[in-house]
């Protein structure tokens, strides 16, 4: 998997905030061990699902809040391919933003940065040391707007492309048997029409 994330020049989360964020994301999208029921979508035994925080949620948020520490800003990964399935390794070459697009994204990120500062403070520095019920109790008391934002970012970080900082080494995609980007190789016509092979699916 590509991992073009590099430490930002000026971290936007301090160590305590990062620990809290990892614990928060792991509480929102918790890990699951291999082989859990129910049966996975694929035919093979279910691999472990990482927690959204442990899989790089802090790096995802750090990269997002620090998008403009880089030139071009790390908002839109490049293309047309990642190189994982042929083609060039282009995802790490982030796209330029226009001046107006940059204005919008700076505003959006400023709002998120303030939301994280406030929300992580509200969770408390001891949040990461709490047991599951303690964490859920604190999360329940969060401002709903921040709780929704954190959940959205947790989902994006865990199941989005690793180039954005989360989904470490594609571990979440592996857990759900999702190949991720496939271009330019894609799938053969037979893989599209007969994905279970000549015997068809197992009912």
């Amino acid at each position, binding site marked *: 998997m590509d991992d073009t994330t590099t430490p930002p020049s000026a971290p936007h989360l301090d160590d305590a905030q990062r620990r809290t964020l990892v614990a928060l994301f792991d509480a929102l999208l918790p890990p699951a061990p291999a082989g859990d029921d129910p*049966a996975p*979508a694929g035919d093979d035994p279910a691999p472990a699902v990482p927690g959204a925080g442990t899989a790089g949620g802090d790096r995802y948020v750090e990269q997002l809040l620090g998008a403009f520490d880089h030139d071009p800003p790390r908002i839109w990964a490049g293309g047309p*391919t990642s190189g994982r399935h042929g083609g060039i390794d282009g995802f790490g070459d982030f796209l330029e933003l226009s001046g107006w697009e940059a204005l919008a994204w700076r505003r959006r990120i400023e709002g998120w940065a303030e939301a994280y500062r406030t929300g992580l403070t509200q969770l408390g520095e001891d949040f990461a040391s709490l047991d599951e019920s303690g964490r859920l109790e604190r999360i329940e008391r969060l401002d709903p707007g921040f709780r929704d934002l954190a959940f959205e970012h947790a989902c994006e970080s865990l199941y*989005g492309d690793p180039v954005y900082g989360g989904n470490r080494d594609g571990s979440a995609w592996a*857990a759900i048997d999702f190949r991720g980007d496939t*271009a330019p190789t894609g799938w053969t*016509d037979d893989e599209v029409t007969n994905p279970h092979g000549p015997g068809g699916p197992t009912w």
Partner: protein
Amino acid sequence: MVTDCDAVVVGSGPGGSTAAHALTRAGWDVIVLEKGRNHLLALEPPFGPLGHMSNDELKFTRRHVLGPDPILEPRSFRRDGADGERIHVGDVNNLPSTVGGGGVHADGKLPRFREDDFALRSSLGPVEGADVVDWPIAYADLEPYYAEAERLVGVAGEETNPFAAWRSGPFPMPPGADMFGATLSAPAAERLGLHPYRAPTGANSVPYDGRPACVNCGFCGYYGCPVEAKGDPVALLRAALRTGRCRIVPESLVVGVTRTPDGRTATGVRYLDLSAGPAAGDPPVRELRSRVVVLAGGAFETPRLLLRDGLGNSSDQVGRNLMVHFQTLTVGAFPFRVFGASRGRSVTHVHDDHIVGDDAQRAAARAAGLPWIRGGLVEHGGAAGPVQEALIYGPGRHHPDAMRDSSLRERLWVFTMQGEDLARPENRIDLDPTLRDVWGGPAGRMTWSPHRHELAASAHVGPILEAVLFEAGVEWAVTSTSPPLGEDAAAHPMGLAPASRHIVGTARMGARAEHSVVDPECRLWDCPNVVVCDSSVFCTSTGYGPTLTLIALAARTAALLTGEPLSAADPGSGPR
């Protein structure tokens, strides 16, 4: 008058690109102004791809790469006046605002309309509370342009739909690979008496026009194509550029049409040069002079421009009769993977039966107190990507198992009926009274609610679609609508505004100036050297996606402008 070009085209989506192609081919010099960025193709020879399109769920579905960014260009929505000035601000039916427009993100389902669609009033009659009309043109008028549109874009399909209108020739390409889910749902539909067929699709099934065949990557609807297998609109724009008579200027927001003192003749356009960026202060205002102005901003932005500019509205019809496909969404999960979210073209099969109707549908209309109801094209397709799925499940301990089980993605199969929406003058686009875009212009506002025809059609078809899914083997099935209905509608994840990007009808074509905005050749009645080349001109929504028809209309409009109309074909000349 000294001009900068023969025609300025406002908008580079399917309509604008078609006009640019047709006009340049006829020898006209054309400048295309596009308010969005260019991610599609190089604007210098050899006009190759820029490489910005990719299989990236975050970039395309979460981060507005194709625009518009709702922070810069907010829109508002309300269902009717009882909602007050608005109930929602942000993304409202946002089609991409980028070079290529809505064609960039579409999965390229490109059906033609049927003969009856152009004569709805004559064939079925009026409906109380709706403004059902005939188009001032007939299918036969448009058929040669449909054929040309299919050739230019590159449409893959087959002539197996028993309800299809006549055609003068075969599809340019055979259909692509059947999605696995469709190999289950299409036979099930047939067993229940329906007539599914392979969807006409503007994605290459074989190499075509110098572009490769689709690689079935699974990132189709809502994504730009990284290999250029989708022809709309890149094929048209590239062809226009290659004439040497076309220039595309991104980041150019047209804010007015300049006119002669009597207001009857356009002399060009006035636009904001957004390329300067905010550091330069207010965007520079620039002007272009041309013989003809082509408006192709889509059925939201075209009426917004006309209204803010006070143009073309002597009939008070600009923005009215907005139609949005009323979507009926019937979903079900198979006990095994169907790969609908990860392999293929998003949708490969459709059926038309609920447009044509049957005795049961007529009975349902009578029961609802309506003279008739018509549904829409039903798309047999897959679900969205894993980020979207993850968002649906909500946080908690259940989440990882839900994702592995994937009942809402890899096991899900989706029927989407693009239900016909009847025109009503009170459903409209107008200017929000206070909301502004970042450049100070009035934001567009959508006012829309369904007529009971749409509700009755949806209520009738939903159970049929659930029965088909059960016949195909799903474990469960459920039906919802977009926009959502009922007491819990406000909590629906899709929001109260209709999700369909198929919006039409806000600058209606008509035979009489007092009831329409453009004439049968799509010229503004009030300013005839301004033509509209987008879905604004539609008189009915039909139950089909609008793109191929708006391309055909744009090609016809351009051909009439240049004095080179295509000859009508003989209905008996080709396959049906």
